């Protein structure tokens, strides 16, 4: 599913003293198969934007199409397709573990599946729940546990499984690794890559303000600031704008910073800013100039 937004505008608390323009003329295309990174500060409009993608915030002004669903059409028509849309565009909010509610892990993960496919047979539900949990590396021993008895990282994985259970084509994650320890972060990012590489989820969109994380993992990025997109493109292009990114108080990945500093002392290397590529380029530069 290709996601196309054209001149999307949105204002919170319209017509009141507290009116906030959350999105101003946002145009963005998220291609199928991309691992998309959305960068921005709190209040930059990134959360508002992603909530448009599955109809949690109705389109007010501008155009938005997700696959063959035109979300900017007549609201009555659009509303009828919300269920279909939400099954296809999975949304994992920040700290998703806070939305767990059922008595067992099984019931919680099954919640989404039963909502989207109300006519499903019990064994279909079981297969779907097993499948989603095993994608996140959780075995059958977790099924009957209470979600509240799990560790933080496990809770988060159960919550993500609860979204994956409906087999979405697009998975949107708001700060998926926030609050996890380094090992947990790496594990979760590896899991997301596994999902993406195996085409289990075709498109992944992550919201983050960790530049290194975005640079290492994403194929495309968009930078939001005050409701507008200031940069979009491949990470190796966007992160060349060291000065502007610093002015936006977002900064750049450490590799991009080092490349910039090296340039100032006359060492010019051409890298795509992933750590692996950066090290290789430095090494070959060193060898060539020996």
């Amino acid at each position, binding site marked *: 599913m290709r996601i196309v937004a054209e001149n999307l505008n949105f204002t919170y*608390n319209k017509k009141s*003293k507290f009116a906030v323009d959350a999105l101003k003329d946002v145009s963005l295309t998220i291609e199928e198969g991309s691992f998309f990174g959305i960068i921005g500060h709190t209040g930059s409009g990134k959360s508002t934007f992603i*909530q448009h993608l*599955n109809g*949690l915030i109705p389109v007010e002004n501008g155009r938005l199409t997700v696959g063959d669903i035109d979300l900017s059409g007549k609201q009555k028509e659009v509303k009828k397709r919300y*269920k279909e849309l*939400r*099954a296809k565009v*999975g*949304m994992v*909010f920040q700290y*998703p573990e*806070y*939305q*767990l*509610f*059922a008595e067992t892990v099984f019931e919680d993960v099954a*919640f*989404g599946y039963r*909502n*989207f496919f109300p006519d499903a047979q019990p064994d279909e539900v079981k297969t779907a729940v097993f499948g989603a949990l095993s994608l996140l590396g959780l075995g059958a021993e977790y099924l009957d546990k209470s979600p*509240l008895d799990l560790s933080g990282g496990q809770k988060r994985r159960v919550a993500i499984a*609860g*979204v994956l259970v*409906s087999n979405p084509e697009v998975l949107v994650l708001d700060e998926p690794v926030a609050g996890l320890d380094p090992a947990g972060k790496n594990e979760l990012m590896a899991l997301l890559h596994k999902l993406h590489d195996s085409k289990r989820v075709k498109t992944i969109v992550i919201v983050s303000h960790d530049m290194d994380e975005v640079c290492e993992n994403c194929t495309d990025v968009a930078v939001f600031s005050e409701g507008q997109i200031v940069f979009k493109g491949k990470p190796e292009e966007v992160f060349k704008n060291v000065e502007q990114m610093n002015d936006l108080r977002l900064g750049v990945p450490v590799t991009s910073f080092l490349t910039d500093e090296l340039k100032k002392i006359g060492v010019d290397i051409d890298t795509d800013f992933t750590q692996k590529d950066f090290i290789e380029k430095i090494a070959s530069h060193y060898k060539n100039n020996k």
Partner: protein
Amino acid sequence: MLSDVTFGQYYPSNSFVHKLDPRTKILLLIAYIVMIFVAQNFFGLALSLLFLAVAVIFSGVPFTSILKSIKGIIFLVVFTALLNILFYAPKEGDTHLFWIIYLEGLFSAGFLALRLVSLVMGSSLLTLTTTPVSLTDGIESLLSPLKLIKFPVHDLALIMSIALRSIPTLANETERIINAQKARGADFDSGNIISRAKALIPVLIPLLISAFRRGDELGDAMDARCYSGSKVRTKYKKLTFGVRDLVAFLIVCALIAGVILFNIYGAQLWALIASLWS
């Protein structure tokens, strides 16, 4: 959606009403409520409403915010008004309109509805122009005589201010959880009452858990800063009555006198208006 909750939402401004001492505002609200209940005819009620309207104009709060506060009780108002019309006990000399409806019944229902509406509008003006913190400060100060009988006034005030402060936080949290469950295909808008109530379980349980978690964290944070509701606590903002408080009190005294006069001479006024009319 939930951010529409007017109650407990402060409307920031720097107006005359905002600057009044919170104790004054609480006392004035009580006086206003007394005025509404003392008033026995439309003249008195009109005077109270006029007072409210002037207060709203001086506060700079848009009338729409005040009107929004009625939204929550509109059902109650209509329901009581209907009961009053249908179960009106007719007295001698009442005008019978049709079936069991009497003109006086309609009047008394309208009067009651107006009373309820002005009650809620007045109270919401207080919360719109007073921050929760100064509101509880005011209540604490007004209740302080109760300390003599060992009533924990300070703790009560603290509980109140935490409760008031939690309303917007929990409202935000609720909205977040609702969105998260909607994204998982939950449907809150269709089905009968029972299935709608059932649909709320996935919202209420996480909300409760998070309220407890927040409570725990807040308690720890207060302990960490050695909070104890001891007698020796001092205040950052001391409440002081000023000239404007005196002015406000005098105006309200005059108004209460007006309402009482209207009560006594209401019948004569009606007669006067009727004679002018014809």
